[in-house]
């Protein structure tokens, strides 16, 4: 079916997308909560910045990442000096690009769910002795599970499909940053490689289908005995 190289690509894609989504999750939750429940000056700006990866072509995002997180960039140079972390030409760069591209989708999904949580339940938790933070952890967050699951699915799918920012920022290096979309793109450039393209594309689709099915199972688990008194 797939060649050894192709398996390596699939494994790398899974790894990069998995790390990207897990890394983006806490930030997404924090931003979603901020946007859903807090009024502060400059909120529109924060919201706008989060949406940038959607609005700008991915190549531009990759280019901005290169400027900021490259070895000579203001953030990248410090990260490199202090922690020895590099992004360009490294799988961490692919994961960073994927996380950034997935972020707006994840924030929005979680935000929708947080906004749908009945604030009266949060009030009840407060009277029972839970502070703001505990109320968030024990009431708001668990009731936002549908949004979190949706965020994981959307984010994972988006990461799996991420191409433009990754190749511009992290380059296309076999075994390091060559994820499925990069491999597919390379094959697309060669006349007559349609079969290889289709095989890799099918692999992407299979991975995301698995994630979808897993998410449906998760949501059904989290339905809190729904189905009773349904109408």
């Amino acid at each position, binding site marked *: 079916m797939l060649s050894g190289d192709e398996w390596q690509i699939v494994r790398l894609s899974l790894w990069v997308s998995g790390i990207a989504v897990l890394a983006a999750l806490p930030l997404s939750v924090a931003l979603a909560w901020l946007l859903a429940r807090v009024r502060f000056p400059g909120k529109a700006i924060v919201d706008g910045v989060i949406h940038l990866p959607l609005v700008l072509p991915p190549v531009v995002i990759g280019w901005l990442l290169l400027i900021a997180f*490259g070895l000579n960039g203001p953030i990248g140079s410090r990260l490199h000096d202090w922690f020895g972390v590099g992004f360009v*030409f490294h799988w961490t760069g692919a994961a960073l690009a994927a996380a950034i591209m997935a972020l707006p989708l994840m924030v929005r999904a979680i935000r929708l769910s947080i906004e749908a949580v009945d604030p009266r339940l949060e009030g009840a938790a407060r009277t029972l002795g839970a502070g703001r933070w505990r109320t968030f952890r024990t009431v708001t967050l668990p009731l936002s599970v549908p949004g979190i699951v949706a965020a994981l699915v959307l984010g994972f799918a988006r990461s799996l499909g991420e191409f433009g920012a990754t190749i511009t920022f992290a380059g*296309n290096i076999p075994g390091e940053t060559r994820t499925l979309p*990069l491999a597919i793109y*390379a094959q*697309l450039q060669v*006349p007559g490689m349609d079969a290889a393209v289709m095989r890799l594309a099918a692999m992407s689709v299979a991975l995301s289908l698995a994630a979808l099915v897993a998410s449906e199972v998760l949501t059904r688990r989290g339905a809190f005995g729904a189905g009773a008194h349904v109408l």
Partner: protein
Amino acid sequence: SLQESLTEAAGAWAKAGHAMPVLSFGASSALARQIRAGAPADLFFSADEDWMDAVEQSGELRPGTRADLLGNRLALIVPAGDRRRFTLDRRLPLARLLGNGRLAMADPDAVPAGKYGKAALAALGLWPDVANRIARGESVRTALAFVERGEAPFGIVYETDAMASSSVRVAAIFPAGSHKPIRYPVALLKRSASPDAAGFRRFLASPAASAIFRRHGFGPL
């Protein structure tokens, strides 16, 4: 890339009293696929001979209208601050010069600039040493950006691209014999219905157009 010079050439053609041609720029692969899918195009100007061959084989070209219009050269580039010059031959210790860095170039298996680069390095016997030190870009432009930003100490791009960027410097030109000649073929499409198409194609081969291309670094054939 062809984009700027072709835009300029089209402008000159229009100034001479013709209708402004509609230009669509994209990767050769995308354009070729659009043609095969029945896109209403008149002329195909490709940076990739393989894709021109593919379109020809699928019978989309008007016979006898294919011609190689432009040539280009392949350059080894370094960031603008790097003052070194090199001679590209078998003795160049490219791998050692790279150190931990990478050699940025377009995908050597897929994109024409990368394919030429790989062939040239192979002919010079340098390829085996650097094969696993390549940073592949999606296009020449991506490779250029890596060198511009100092992420990669060396890159291989077309001379035309190198000339257009002030952040990189040409450290060496690949010897002409180290790779197949870089050619940009053009051809009329069978489907073409525009009476102007053939005229514009002739114009692109004319001295007036050649001057424009030459200014951007292309070598008209």
